[in-house]
């Protein structure tokens, strides 16, 4: 990898990128697809492109995924009833 690889990657933009507002509006839907093992990126390519490019939104995605996964691990769904 070139020494300028990070700069080059930073400068590359994906025209499918939907931006923060649209990605965050369906973040819960996207995360549930990921947790269910479905092709979330295939169903929402613009969201996938954005989460790869936007650090803060990518961090929110990682946080929500961790939250939901921790619930599954704890088996706490039963607490709803």
């Amino acid at each position, binding site marked *: 990898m*070139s*020494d*300028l690889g*990070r*700069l*080059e*990657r*930073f*400068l*590359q*933009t994906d025209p499918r*990128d939907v*931006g*923060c*507002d649209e990605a*965050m509006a*369906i*973040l*819960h*839907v996207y*995360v*549930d697809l990921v*947790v269910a093992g479905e092709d979330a990126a295939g169903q929402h390519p613009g969201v996938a492109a954005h989460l790869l*490019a*936007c*650090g*803060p*939104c990518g*961090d*929110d995605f*990682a*946080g*929500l995924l*961790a*939250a*939901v996964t*921790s*619930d599954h691990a704890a088996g*706490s*769904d039963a*607490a*709803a*009833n």
Partner: protein
Amino acid sequence: MERGRERTERLDEESSAWLRRLGGAGGERQAAERDLHARLVRIALAEIRRRSGSTPVTGPELDDIAHQAAADAMLAILSKLGDFRGESRFITWAYRFVILEVSSKLGRHYWRNQPVALDAGQWELLPDRFGIDPAGHAESAGILAAVRKVVEDELTEHQRRVFVAIVVDEIPLDALAAELGLRRNAIYKVIFDARRKIRRALVANGYLEEPGVERR
């Protein structure tokens, strides 16, 4: 009414239970709110811990932020219960609120412990920002100078200020959004457009070639 019935028909059992309890009355509703709040606090604390390495906020302030985030998320969730359309599990929808609250609050608290001032303009650190080894500084000087020239000559004052804050000074995007009173998306759009503009200029000047192969 019709929308609510359609929503309920396709909900999973757990989500239906949350909505029934939160939409109920008296003790059942209060118990549901306590349960949900306890979950939001747990998630907020975990999220704060997960992000603790990337924020200058430390100590008891982090716990305070977690509890504030959970409380604000709780209010938002209860006021927007009617907006839940059943496109995801209810708890995933609810957790989204608390995760976004944590993000937003950490952004605002950044300025209480700020490691760098707004408009610092630390251009000498640009090679480090892109992971360029000191041995490669001389080789990369030309392309980095070209980046700076585009920023200074072709961006508007607002675009330049945002670019320098985010890329050169590495101020977190949410912190800058809070400081400037802008939405995250507005900041991202500025950076997105700047990236395209800089790339076009670097290609035009022979520093890069499509689709991203370094030439010099």
